[in-house]
């Protein structure tokens, strides 16, 4: 009876907001609009009775009544939502990556009312809110910044903090004085003093693709879900089969060590290895903590959830939807909710039984196109042998972890090379470091078979993956995103670029050419003719060269004198770098 009344009350409220033209209810007579949603974040409110999903593709927020396990509303919130968080019990904050904005909503029951919007640094991907609900911290991917927002009306930017890497996950530590920010591609962690607005320390973990960040049940450790790529293993069948090449991990890092810049970050920590021979656990993503201390880890690449560890260190795994990337645990610890990004659904997991109790569809979906199907395949570790990793594992977000990998793409093993960004790669053929791949489809086939050791893909899969890669834009210029372009320096730098004849190999507009060149480099097998990588978005790359020998662009020209004719003055060098960083 109580449940029925609540539902009626919620519906009444929803009706009012729908009438205002804001909401589109799943229960409304016209029915929810069919579209691709791609949920990527979850927030539970109202004592666990109301679940919200942030949908990346549709820019909407879906509302699920957790008692009836039905979607009760869907709100057009923005263009591309990447994160969502509850602020106290009556507000929600979301970030819109495409609009570059933080969005604020007031919650009434399961309904939302927009109450604020503030522009933040471009490409926001994560939001944290201080315990008192007064401030929000927004991490922005390509602009490598954190925006600190005062949430009191009208919300406004307090300060912007430059970060030394592209961030994705953040975690505000208890008390709110420190914020941990994790690298979106590599393994760096930064600690930000929230009062001073300064980056306090930056350190590296042997990790990449950090997709989960949470506080461990003991309150003394950070939990990270990430992957590791072994520099000693190659993409042979055996190294893939035995999980030697890429591991999927949940790591505990001592909070004390995190906060002490002089401490050994690995000391006092522990690394869980997920997956086993025959059953990889590709692409761990979200990590959530149950009240009893057990962990809930989504395995985004294989469409599973791992629950554990048990008293023998084992993990119980169960199938959920496709691409589970976010998870929350109900306050009573009885349920976990999992956002299945590529199924447009939420799995409801009975934690005591260790079973999926229900899968809630977020509404009718449009049939995905080739690039959208390709995106799902790109994130699917089941394309690799035994599900150890996906394309996303190394080409995170279509970009790169910046690590070296030894695979056959260059025609030999024993010759590890930097993983290339796929962003903007659609029109920069031929492909591979040796330029031997004449078309993108051949490169996709080669990677799936020889690097990922997967089964032979269908031609449709190959076409879809290629379509997805072609749809990836180049990484944007960091300096331009930060508004720090010295136009005069860029102009002069372009002249240096031309004078030096850089365009002979790196010709605009793609800043590459379809040939290979001998530029005084050679790999371990004697390969000396390299396919020049595109320079678009080079400010988001590095280290440089096939073996990462140059730490930054400056080293490319000073230490390694890469095709430098004569001597470059300090100013010429600075101008050239300014030009390159603007591409």
């Amino acid at each position: 009876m109580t449940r029925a009344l609540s539902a009626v009350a919620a519906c009444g409220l929803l009706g009012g907001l729908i009438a205002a033209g804001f909401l589109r209810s799943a229960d409304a007579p016209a029915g929810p609009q069919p579209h691709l949603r791609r949920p990527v974040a979850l927030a539970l409110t109202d004592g666990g009775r109301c679940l919200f999903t942030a949908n990346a593709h549709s820019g909407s927020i879906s509302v699920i009544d957790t008692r009836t396990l039905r979607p009760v509303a869907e709100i057009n919130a923005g263009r591309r939502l990447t994160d969502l968080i509850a602020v106290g019990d009556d507000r929600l904050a979301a970030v819109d990556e495409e609009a570059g904005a933080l969005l604020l909503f007031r919650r009434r029951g399961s309904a939302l009312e927009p109450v604020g919007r503030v522009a933040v640094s471009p490409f926001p991907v994560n939001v944290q809110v201080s315990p008192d609900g007064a401030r929000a911290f927004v991490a922005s991917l390509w602009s490598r910044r954190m925006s600190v927002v005062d949430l009191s009306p009208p919300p406004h930017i307090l300060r912007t903090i430059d970060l030394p890497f592209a961030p994705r996950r953040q975690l505000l530590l208890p008390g709110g004085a420190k914020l941990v920010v994790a690298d979106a591609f590599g393994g760096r962690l930064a600690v930000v003093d929230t009062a001073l607005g300064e980056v306090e320390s930056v350190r590296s973990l042997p990790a990449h693709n950090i997709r989960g960040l949470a506080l461990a049940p003991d309150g003394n450790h950070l939990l990270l879900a990430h992957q590791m790529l072994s520099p000693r293993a190659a993409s042979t069948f055996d190294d893939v089969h035995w999980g030697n090449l890429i591991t999927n991990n949940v790591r505990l890092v001592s909070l004390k060590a995190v906060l002490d810049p002089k401490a050994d970050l690995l000391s006092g920590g522990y690394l869980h290895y997920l997956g086993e021979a025959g059953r990889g656990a590709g692409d761990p993503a979200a990590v959530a903590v149950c009240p009893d201390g057990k962990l809930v880890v989504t395995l985004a690449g294989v469409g599973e959830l791992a629950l554990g560890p048990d008293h023998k260190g084992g993990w119980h795994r169960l199938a959920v939807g496709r691409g589970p990337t976010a998870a929350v645990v109900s306050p009573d610890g009885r349920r976990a909710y999992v956002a299945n990004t590529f199924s447009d659904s939420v799995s409801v997991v009975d934690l005591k039984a260790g079973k999926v109790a229900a899968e809630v569809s977020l509404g009718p979906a449009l049939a995905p196109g080739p690039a959208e199907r390709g995106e799902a395949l790109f994130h699917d570790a089941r394309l690799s042998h035994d599900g150890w990793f996906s394309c996303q594992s190394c080409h995170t977000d279509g970009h790169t972890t910046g690590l070296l990998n030894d695979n056959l793409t260059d025609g030999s093993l024993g010759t590890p090379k930097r993983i290339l960004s796929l962003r903007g790669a659609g029109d920069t053929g031929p492909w591979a470091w040796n330029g031997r791949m004449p078309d993108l489809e051949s490169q996709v086939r080669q990677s799936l078979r020889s690097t990922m050791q997967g089964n032979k893909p269908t031609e449709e899969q190959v076409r879809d993956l290629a379509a997805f890669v072609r749809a990836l834009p180049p990484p944007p210029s960091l300096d331009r995103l930060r508004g720090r372009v010295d136009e005069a320096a860029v102009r002069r730098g372009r002249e240096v670029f031309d004078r030096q004849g850089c365009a002979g190999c790196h010709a605009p507009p793609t800043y590459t050419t379809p040939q290979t060149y001998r530029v005084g480099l050679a790999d371990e097998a004697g390969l000396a003719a390299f396919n020049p990588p595109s320079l678009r978005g080079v400010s988001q790359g590095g280290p440089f060269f096939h073996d990462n020998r140059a730490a930054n662009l400056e080293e490319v020209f000073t230490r390694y004198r890469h095709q430098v004719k004569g001597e470059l003055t300090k100013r010429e060098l600075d101008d050239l770098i300014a030009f390159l960083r603007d591409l």
Partner: protein
Amino acid sequence: MSRRPLLAACLLGFLPFAGRAAPPAQDTASAAGRAWAITEVALDRHIAPCSRQEMLLGGTRALLRAAEIDPPADLGRRVSTITTPEQWVAFLREVWPAVRGQKTSELMEEELFKGLVGPLPHSQWLPPLTAKLADQVSNNRYVGTGIQLRIAQEERCPQIVTPFRKGPAYRAGARPGDLIVEVDGKNTQNVPLAKVVDWLRGDEGQPVTMVVRQPKETEKRTLHLIRGKVPFDTTLGYRRAGPDSWDYRIDAGQPVAYVRIQSINSATLHELRQVEGRLQAEGVQAVVLDLRFSGGEDAALHGAELVADGLLDGGVMWRLRERDRVRECRADGECLFRGWPLAVLVDDHMGLPAEAVAAALQDNRRAVLVGERRQLDAVTSLFQGLPGAPAVPPPATEGPARRAAQPQATPTRDLTSIIPLPDGGGALSLLIGRLERAQARRGWPVRPDHAIALTRKQQEDVMQWVRDKELSEIPAGKADQPPEDPQLSKAVALLRLALEKGKEGPASKPAEGR
């Protein structure tokens, strides 16, 4: 004298072969092509190769020897003029002897290939099947039925010593002691064991049927099985706790675990990670790694590299001196059993992978080594015994153990590697480098930090105990009772001391890392 007249004169010298029944021209060309490929690989990868002509001469001599033909006096001079594949094909076509007696063309080819590699130090050609098996073993994906066989003297037929736990035969119901009376309908009585093994071998996914019975029983059982991968556990525990689980603690009251590394290959690091998860959950704080008579060939150095890296939190593992470069192998910062004291049991019979791991741990002060070294250089063979089974030579000394003289240290250790040849032409086992320890002055073989000898009886008992761990069942009449093992006892004592003293005392040094 120009080369052309010399070649013509040489060809005339081989007129005795003209007119003999030779294999078709394309067969000879194929053999010549594969032989040339062997010389290419050897010249490219061997650390100190001889000349191509020396290899070609060795091959030709072997070929003629197999055909029972005396090589002519000018053979060396003629071969020395061959510099192109075309010349070699023409030469081989001319000299290829007619097949005689029981010898087949394939056997002649094999002699040629073996002969080619003969002049290269520490190298051999492996026929395709051997190469395939070697690859399967070093990567722990041996394909077969998964049984260990012997001949039952009384019944004069093959008997299953043990079916391996994860193999197809075990899953199909084979039991230790089963007599195999038929394989695919063929009676096995009085059939040589090698022949039966041949019948049982086959490709992955292929079916085979065995009829078996227990000795002194008449009831026969028919086992239908599909040949498949037989993954051997390369890490084992202290006592078996169930069909697929181990107790690792030596004493339930002490947080010290025993992990036996049976052999080192591509699977070992993965297994150690699984073990670590279990030990961590059980509150273990220190580990004994038993590497005594741990198998593994040079080719499995990759597995050793993974394991050493997995156990170290940084530092140089070793240096590999190859022909054109010195490759320093470094461990990354991630490691298993972080902060736990480690003790490693070593002996004379470890294969190179185990030896390399022990050296890396010692050189980086990650573990304390306990055991006995008497011989200069232990040699194990990949092709002796069954895959996965440790190569266990008999004890080296008679009677009570005595403190033997320390072996002479050598600065480097030869490293061979198995390199596959194209087009299924087998593989080459080549000397590709020399391994130098991180602390080069220590040399090889590794020496224990604590030398503890075993009596002959103790050594036999320990070996048997370790062998029994692999069996699917504990043999009848035996209890899973660990034998007296002073080396293990010493290691445990050192670890307990390290735990008690924290970071003080000699045994605790490993816990401090480098």
